[in-house]
Structures are given as structure tokens and as C-alpha cells.
């Protein structure tokens, strides 16, 4: 073969080899999309990149392109595995970490009596861990857990807030069948509304007096076991709206408050039954609920703060409450009434010679609110949005809160009228503005008229 032919042959071999190497090293690209002429009434081209090319769309992918794609996938897999090992937290079971913070500014704007101070505070900081220990796709008989810690003003001691296991005894997937759950651990008390409802029924920053530590302390957690369920559910599939005609809940608790062992042999009983209007979503009666609650327990007989001999569980405590609520976005109201009887020692040093008396207390609250926005539309607000989006919701409200610590004594009650406005502006975030006009009565003394402005920023994650 002549030198020229050898040279041409050599150049040809070099060319083909180089082409293969180039193809192997080139990144894998998707087939081009060529433009096709259409009779679209739109004269301007599409906002897509290169349009489809019919020939490229039919081209066969080569072995080397496939190998290149496999290499890319393998590289991504290795990167992800390294990240999972080093940079991403793991857990043994399903876990959602969440938290809620309430940061508050309180200012007394006027008062008939001297007051301590205005200022900022962290009203509450909660860190929570929730998840499922067992998820049942067949009937939804799931085993779930919750563990949370709370620090709040004024002590800021971090303590367990909720710590419970919950099992779904009945199936929970079919929306047209009843449910029944068993909860065990440190739980909320199933009494009324103020003690246990979410922000859709409680717009005010402060809990009503009767439900808080200044009243019956119904909002405090306790350790025990609780059954809650519902009967005769009504389901409107047009809105994925489920409402049971009857909701019930009953708990057996220590009665000693959160993070405390039982102080006597008796267990306290708390129970609530509520009736909901079993109507379609479009009904004017949607959101109407009437509830009755009962609490019965035992406390210690105390003399100057100390338990008298044999006095553990010697004093009876009962509460009875009724509530009525109508929450049908955009308008709603809640009304709750609770009366309690507490036995206390009048004189005596032991159970045998103890003389007791019963004090009756009473509290009630009424809240009226209105909202503009999608905060409480559970289905419509779940939107696919590429950026960080959340609908704004505006909620003005007014609340009247009344507490009488001893109905046998005249002129010792407290009334608080709250004018409020809530702004929901990001997912799990809201700004609350409350103006509390408080009138506190003490027998034989002038009224204590105090006006307080509260601004609270609550956010969760």
C-alpha cells in the first residue's frame, strides 16, 4: 500500500477514535425538541426552550450515551449516600420535629393600682417530636407518639409538656365509619373548649380565666389514660368534610398536674360529650357544636398549706361545664360556662376531727370573631406553589371573660373585655394584638380597673 494510503488510513483511524472518545466524554443531553409549524392562534413562539425535532425524537440512544447516563446516576447516588451518612439526621422510626414560640410584649396602659412592669417575655416555647411507631395502610390502626417540652414565663424551666402514646382501636381510614383512640401518658384534659381547642376556636392570646391557673387550671396537662372517639359520622365528599354527630372523651388521671405523681389513692375522672350538627358543608348549621363536660376528683385537705393527718384525697373537687360554638368560616362564636365546687378544711388537725366547707366558683366566656382569608379552609389552602407562599388572613374578634372565685361572696369577681386582631401571614405564623379592659372587684375596696395592651408573635416550625 502506498504511503499516501497509509497516511489516509492512519488519519481515518485517528478521526474515528477521537469521535468515540468525544462522545463518551460529552455530557448526556436530552433529545432536542424541534419546532413544528402550527396553526396556533398565538403568533409568538412558546416560552419553552428548543422545540421538538421529529428526527431527533426518533433517534436511537447509543450504548455509550446510556453508559454515560448510568455513570451520572451512580455519581448522584454516591453523593446522596455520603450526605445521608454525614449531613442528614436519622431516626429509628418516623419523626416530625416541630415547635411553637410565643413572644410577647405586655404594656399596662392604665390602672387604678400600682403595677409591676411592662415588657417583653417569651410566653411559651415548645419543642415537639411526633411520629408513627406503626402505620397500618389496611385499616389505619396506627400507633403514634408525641413528646414535647415546654418553657414558659416567668420561670422558664424546661419541662415535659405532652408525652403520650396513642393507638387507633377502630379503623381510621374510612371517613364514613366511627373512630376510637386510646391515649396513655401526659395528656390534655378533655374538658370544654378553652382547655383543649386550637386557634380556630380560640383567637385570644390569653386563656380564659376559669380555664387557666387562676381558675380551675383545666388547660394544664395531667398523667393518665384517655379514650376518645366519635359516632355517626356524616361525610360530604364534595369538600372532604367529615363531621360526627357525637364526639366523646373520657380520661382517668392522677389529678396532680403535669410531671407529678399521684398524691392520693383516688383517680380523677374527666369526661366530655359533644353534639355536632351532622350537615353538609354548604349548610348554614355547619360548625355548630354543643358540649357538656364533667370533672370529679380528690385533693388533699390542707391546713396552712400542709396536709393534715389522713388528709390525702380527703377533699372532693367537681367541675361541670357547658359549651356552645359555631365556627363556620368566615364567622364564628364560642360560649363556655363552667362551675366548680372545692371542698376545703375549715378546722381540724386530722381527718377524724376535720370540719370542711365547700366553695363554689363560676366562670364563663364568650368570643365572637370574623375572618378574611384562607387560614381555616383546610382543603383550599393546600396549594402547590413553587415559592414560599401562604395566604394572608385577617381576624378581628371580641371576647368577654368573667370569673367569680367564690359565688357566696359578693363583689369579688373579675371581668375582662378583650378587643383583638389576628394577622396570619405565613404558614404557622401569626401576629396577635389584644387590648384587655379588666375590672377586678374586691369586697369593700374600690374596683381595680386595668387596661393592658398585649402584642404576641406566635410562630411554629
Amino acid at each position, binding site marked *: 500500500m502506498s504511503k499516501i494510503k497509509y497516511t489516509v488510513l492512519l488519519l481515518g483511524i485517528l478521526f474515528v477514535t477521537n469521535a468515540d472518545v468525544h462522545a463518551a466524554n460529552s455530557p448526556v443531553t436530552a433529545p432536542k425538541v424541534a419546532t413544528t409549524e402550527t396553526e396556533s392562534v398565538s403568533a*409568538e413562539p412558546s416560552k419553552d426552550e428548543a422545540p421538538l425535532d421529529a428526527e431527533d425524537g426518533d433517534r436511537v440512544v447509543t450504548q455509550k450515551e446510556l453508559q454515560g447516563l448510568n455513570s451520572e446516576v451512580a455519581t448522584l447516588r454516591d453523593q446522596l449516600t455520603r450526605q445521608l451518612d454525614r449531613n442528614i439526621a436519622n431516626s429509628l422510626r418516623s419523626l416530625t420535629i416541630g415547635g411553637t414560640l410565643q413572644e410577647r410584649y405586655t404594656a399596662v396602659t392604665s390602672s387604678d393600682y400600682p403595677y409591676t412592669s411592662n415588657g417583653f417575655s417569651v410566653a411559651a416555647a415548645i419543642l415537639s417530636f411526633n411520629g408513627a411507631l406503626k402505620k397500618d*395502610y389496611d385499616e389505619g390502626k396506627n400507633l403514634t407518639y408525641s413528646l414535647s417540652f415546654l418553657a414558659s414565663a416567668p420561670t422558664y424551666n424546661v419541662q415535659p409538656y405532652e408525652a403520650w402514646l396513642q393507638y387507633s382501636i377502630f379503623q381510621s381510614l374510612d371517613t364514613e365509619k366511627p373512630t376510637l383512640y386510646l391515649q396513655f401518658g401526659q395528656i390534655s384534659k378533655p374538658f370544654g373548649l378553652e382547655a383543649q381547642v386550637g386557634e380556630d376556636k380560640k383567637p385570644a392570646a390569653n386563656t380564659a380565666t376559669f380555664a387557666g391557673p387562676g381558675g380551675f387550671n383545666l388547660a394544664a396537662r395531667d398523667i393518665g389514660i384517655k379514650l376518645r372517639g366519635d359516632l355517626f359520622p356524616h361525610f360530604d365528599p364534595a369538600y372532604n368534610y367529615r363531621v360526627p354527630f357525637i364526639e366523646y372523651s373520657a380520661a382517668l388521671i392522677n389529678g396532680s398536674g403535669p410531671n407529678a405523681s399521684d398524691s392520693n389513692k383516688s383517680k380523677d375522672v374527666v369526661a366530655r360529650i359533644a353534639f355536632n350538627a351532622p350537615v353538609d358543608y354548604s349548610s348554614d348549621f355547619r360548625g355548630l357544636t354543643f358540649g357538656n363536660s364533667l370533672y370529679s376528683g380528690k385533693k388533699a385537705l390542707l391546713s396552712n398549706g400542709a396536709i393534715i393527718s389522713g388528709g390525702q384525697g380527703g377533699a372532693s373537687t367537681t367541675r361541670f361545664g357547658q359549651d356552645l360554638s359555631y365556627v363556620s368560616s368566615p364567622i364564628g362564636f364560642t360560649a363556655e360556662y363552667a362551675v366548680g365546687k372545692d371542698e376545703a378544711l375549715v378546722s381540724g388537725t386530722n381527718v377524724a376531727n376535720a370540719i370542711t366547707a365547700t366553695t363554689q366558683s363560676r366562670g364563663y366566656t364568650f368570643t365572637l370573631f370574623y375572618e378574611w382569608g384562607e387560614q381555616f379552609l383546610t382543603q383550599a389552602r*393546600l396549594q402547590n406553589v413553587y415559592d414560599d407562599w401562604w395566604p394572608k388572613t385577617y381576624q378581628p374578634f371580641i371576647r368577654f371573660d368573667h370569673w367569680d372565685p367564690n359565688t357566696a361572696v359578693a363583689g369579688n369577681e373579675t371581668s375582662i373585655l378583650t378587643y383583638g386582631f389576628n394577622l396570619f401571614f405565613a404558614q404557622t405564623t401569626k401576629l396577635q394584638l389584644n387590648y384587655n379592659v379588666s375590672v377586678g372587684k374586691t369586697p369593700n375596696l374600690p374596683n381595680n380597673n386595668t387596661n393592658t395592651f398585649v402584642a404576641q408573635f406566635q410562630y411554629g416550625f
Partner: protein
Amino acid sequence: MKKWLKVFFPTAALLIMAISAQAAEHPRVIRFAYPAATNPDYAGSPLVNVINNQNLFEKEFAKDGIKIEQSFIKTAGPGTNEGLAAGLFDFADYGDFAIVLGKAGGLKNRLILSPSKGGNVYILARASLHINSVKDLRGKKVSYWKGTVLQTQALRVLEANGLTEKDIRQINLNGADALAALAAGTIDAVVGSYDRPLVDQGLATLVYDTRNFPVSKRYREGLVVSEDFAQKYPDITKRVAKVFIQAAYWASQEKNKEQLIQLLVKTGAKYKYAKGEIGVGNLSQKDQFDPRPDHENTNDYKGLIDFSLKNKLIRTNIDVDKWVDKSYADAALKELGLQNYWAK
């Protein structure tokens, strides 16, 4: 000076009245809602994706200074109905059964277009069970999402095979949960949409699909407008119908099929499955995107309502002849010169 005032104030008043009248002719914003696709930038509806891809809303309404707001609802029909009931949306494009549920539940709207028809469902079963036909589903745990088109489609397929809901153990799970349950082996079959990753993974087999089911019994997309909006802004309603018909005309053409499939892929679907959804089986691409609310559309909705009443899915009958409003589509078709394009 007085002469000047005598001229100025009436002129200013007339000007203000004219501006106010002009403003009343147009809304500041038109609000749309659709069920969301997997990818957050896309709707489940092919025509909506065509509209957005070609900026047809902007081209039609930007010159009037009208803003367009679009909401992609993760909870599909129930979420769309909730938003319509709360007055958050003016138009919604979603599945026929959810539209019927909303209307039967009291929503005040008008059905003005049928953006697409012949929607398909696919029944997947666990590969290990060797289920070969719909009849083999008797006694099995079958999941479909209640309140969506999957429910009516599932019941129609069962009925066509001599079965009812009582012959199966119905499990109510949404799409993602249903596939997870099927993969975990806790349910036996799923009625779902066309994307079938479990089949690719060898965990499920395709038992049945509706691509050759009678078209009148397959699901449709519907475009509804709230009564308030239609009464206040009839011209805008017609122009919205025009935009959808423009998109339908483009989508109905064979030469645009590949671009249409590529748009489906962008919603999160696999190419090979998206390809099987455009102009296949017993429905041509042109007929699939026939948007006219004609007698065929009316008959299909009547059939769906009768079926829903018979199966106690709704309790209230709907007068479809009063509910469907063809006037906007007719005017838009005439303006575009497409009156005879879909005529048979």
C-alpha cells in the same frame, strides 16, 4: 374664574364617571383554580398547561390591565369546591364528578366548557396475586380516592364487569398513600391515573384501563364560572372561554402531539405513559380536545348525575340543561372562526 369653575367641575365629574364605568367593565384580577400536578408549576389539566406555556391569558388580558391568579390545589376536587364556596375563585377547571358534587352541594356556578374528555383510569394489582381481570377483584381490597373522578370511574368499571362496590373491600386512600400501601402489600389493587411506577418496578401489574371504554362513560374535564362573575362580567367570561378554545384547537392537532406529550412529562409523568394518554384507544386527539358544551357533553353529564344518584353518591338532582351555558363557547367559536372545526 367662575366660568372656569363652571366648566371644570362638570368635566371632572364626567371624567370620573367614565373612568368608573370603564373600571366596572373589567375586574382587576381573574382567579383560576385547578387540581395540581406533581410539579408545582403545572396543573393536572393539559389545556391549562398549554395556555400557560403559550402565555395565552397574558396575551388576551394584559392589554386591559387585568391580572391573572392561578391556584394549583393539592387536594383536587374537594379543595377546589371549598375555595369556590368561599368565593376565592372565579373559574375552576377540574374533573366532572367533583364538579357534580360541588353543584349538588349548592355551589352557584355555570358549566361553560368541556376542555377535554375521555380521561382514563388504570387498575393496578399486586404482582404476586396474579389478578388478570376486573372480575378477579371480587373480595379484594381495592383503593380509590373518594370524592374524585377515580370513584365514579372505579364504580363504572366494576359495573361493566358485573360487580358493585359491595363485592370488593373499598379502601379510601389518596394517590401517594395508595401506591405505598400497594407496594407494602397491605391492599390488593389501586384505581389510579396513568403514571405507573410500581409496574416498572415489578411490584404491580396492569389489570385494566379505560382507553377502550365507552367515551361517554369516561371522565371529562369541565370549566365552571361562578354565577356572580358571569353576571358581572359576561364579556370577560366569553374571553376566558376563547382562551381555552384557542388552547383546545392547538392541542387537537396531530402535529402538536409530541409537544403536548412533552408538556405532560413536565407535570411529572413518565414519557411512555404520557404518550398513551393523547389520542389513543377509541378516541382521536381531535375529539379528545373538543371543548364544546354540546348535546354530547350535556348527555354525558346527565348520565353521570343519574349514575351518582343511583349509587347514592349525591342526594340532589341537577337540571343540566339550565346549568350548562353554551353562549360563551358559541360566541368564542364564532369569533375564532372555529364553529365547524369540531362539527361531526
